[in-house]
């Protein structure tokens, strides 16, 4: 895919984009934390401490961190199943994210969600979702709620390039536009959906151009440039908050690993391609930039890497030490209405074995 950066923000060369040392260190550390966390996750998976599907975001740290750093208190975030880094970026404790992967009660989703369904309601992260495209209408509904209750906030909805082919993408963007909702749709274009290239899945491979079909603002930025992503998403979120205008932003990035830990990721792309992207590594690149600018020294960068390594090690230790959900919590929180127990109270008679034999009262 030949990428023409129509609107590429030149943040890493353009002094106009101001950047203080604290911010620089924060962004660097968050990206480093995700990188380290994902590498250890891969290893933990091979040690069979993690089950189910497991999708790593190694290489995509800037698209995730840059965008999420643009969120303000009260804003809402929705993401896809490639969401370990998403949770870390919103500030969920690494130990709680790892605990989720290990299926422990201390996990962000109490061990019920695993890799694909991270969440952190306190931090307004409303989930990693598993049905491609399906969370776009839901995120649009969150924006509708903000608009309906006249809250001065916005929603950031992240999804992959593969989701653009789904009917949900179309319905969500059209609704957001006809209703003038405060939402920014971020397509994290890593050039592939599993083994399918963007050219194969999208008749218009320049995904940002899809926005025009909804008279919506669209733009593309270098998704490996954390500052460019942050600048664009902040600007678009501001617009969404103040002018109630939705937007579509495409951040071009790359996943070094396969689609999931079960995919080597080599059948559908060349080694050359993968290497060429490693040369644009978002973390290395940002590290050089901040060092050169004297915002974070080389020594300090070393320290950052040591800090995150320690943090992830500690996360693993805590997650290992934590306990799994109790078997008898199986039916908890299926229903939340206070009347549910009495509503289901008379459903026992003739109930199938499992629902009765184990002596469960009806689920709430």
């Amino acid at each position: 895919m030949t990428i023409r950066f129509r609107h590429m923000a030149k943040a890493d060369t353009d002094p106009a984009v101001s950047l203080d040392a604290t911010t620089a260190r924060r962004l660097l550390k968050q990206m480093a934390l995700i990188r380290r966390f994902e590498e250890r996750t891969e290893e933990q998976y091979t040690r069979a401490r993690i089950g189910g599907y497991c999708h790593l975001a190694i290489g995509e740290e800037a698209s995730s961190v840059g965008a999420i750093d643009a969120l303000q208190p009260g804003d809402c975030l929705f993401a896809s199943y490639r969401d370990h880094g998403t949770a870390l970026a919103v500030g969920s404790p690494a130990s709680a994210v790892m605990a989720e992967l290990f299926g422990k009660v201390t996990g962000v989703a109490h061990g019920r969600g695993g890799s694909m369904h991270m969440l952190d309601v306190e931090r307004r992260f409303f989930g990693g979702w598993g049905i491609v495209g399906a969370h776009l209408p839901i995120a649009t509904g969150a924006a509708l709620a903000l608009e309906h209750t006249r809250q001065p906030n916005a929603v950031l909805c992240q999804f992959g390039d593969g989701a653009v082919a789904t009917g949900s993408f179309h319905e969500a963007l059209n609704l957001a536009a006809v209703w003038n909702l405060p939402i920014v749709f971020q397509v994290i274009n890593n050039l592939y959906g599993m083994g399918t290239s963007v050219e194969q899945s999208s008749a218009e491979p320049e995904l940002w151009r899809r926005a025009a079909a909804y008279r919506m603002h669209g733009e593309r930025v270098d998704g490996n440039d954390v500052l460019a992503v942050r600048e664009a998403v902040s600007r678009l979120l501001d617009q969404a908050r103040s002018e109630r205008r939705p937007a579509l932003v495409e951040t071009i990035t790359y996943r070094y690993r396969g689609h999931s830990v079960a995919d080597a990721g080599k059948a559908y792309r060349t080694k050359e391609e993968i290497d060429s992207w490693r040369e644009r590594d978002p973390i290395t690149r940002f590290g050089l930039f901040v060092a050169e600018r004297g915002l974070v020294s080389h020594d300090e960068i070393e320290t950052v890497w040591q800090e995150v390594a320690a943090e992830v090690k500690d996360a693993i230790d805590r997650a290992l030490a934590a306990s799994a959900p109790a078997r008898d919590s199986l039916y908890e929180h299926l229903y939340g209405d206070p009347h549910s127990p009495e509503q289901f109270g008379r459903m026992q008679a003739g109930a199938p074995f499992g629902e009765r034999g184990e002596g469960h009262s009806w689920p709430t």
Partner: protein
Amino acid sequence: MADVTYREALRRALDDELGRDESVFLMGEEIGKFEGSYKVTAGLWEKYGARRVRETPISEEGFIGAGIGAAMLGLRPVVEIMTINFILVAMDQVINHAAKIRYMFGGTVGVPMVIRAPGGAGAQLTAQHSQSLEAWFAGCPGLKVVAPATPADAYGMLKTAIRDDDPVLFCENLIMYNVTGTIPDDPEFTVPFGRAQVAREGSDLTLVAHSYTVQRALRVADRLAQDGILVEVVDLRSLRPLDMDTVAESVRKTNRALIAEEGWSTYGVGAELAARISRVCFDDLDAPVERVGSAEVPMPYAKPLELAALPLESKIEAAARSLLAECGIV
């Protein structure tokens, strides 16, 4: 007590709840200026405005999803799907999302959303517009599925649904909108979920039904009464939760059970009921539980064919008589 149509009962419930709770809002196609395809929302757009009564494009997947998202943030959307047949394009949002979110979120977020959808057949609307799909939703943990059969229940249960903190599929019926009945004036009147109702008492046979089929069942009971056969009609009212106690109690008294529904019998609502009745009333039954439903074909247009396909009184009555005949009665 006022005598109103099923349609008006629904409209009042919506009006009441829009009035008493700011977080309630309506969403759907043609529910505003057009007053709803079946006029259930008549006058509400004028009264509450376009924010509280939000008209949508033809994007069921999109706006049911939007309802879920709005509900996750604490609003109480009441989404109208013009007919239940169209919910099939939004099935993923209902089954993979609305039903599962509270559980996946460990109770920290809920989806207090109501989906109103009329189903049923009988107006020659043909294959794609005549289905009764409630059994599929009733089989999904996390959802509540109700199907009131009278204006009073429509009024009371819609209010219960809107106040409920869980996602509720509220099944209406196209033919029933003009059925009239009395509803209490008390705006605080509600009808609880999971409570079936003995719509008519009898000792010879328990006839179980939901939604419009209850009306048919009552007419069948009238006819049979003329031959001295006393049919007890049990109106299920909700399918999930299901009130088996009331059903079982009735069958223990009559020793015979017939289930009628407008959907397809095979793998339908009646299957679950027959399975449970056969189990819990194993020693009480004089004869096997019988079922009647729509003919298992896509609904055809021509009136004679549609009538042949529908579970009309005649068909229900014939089933009742053959069941009673098996037991040596009549």
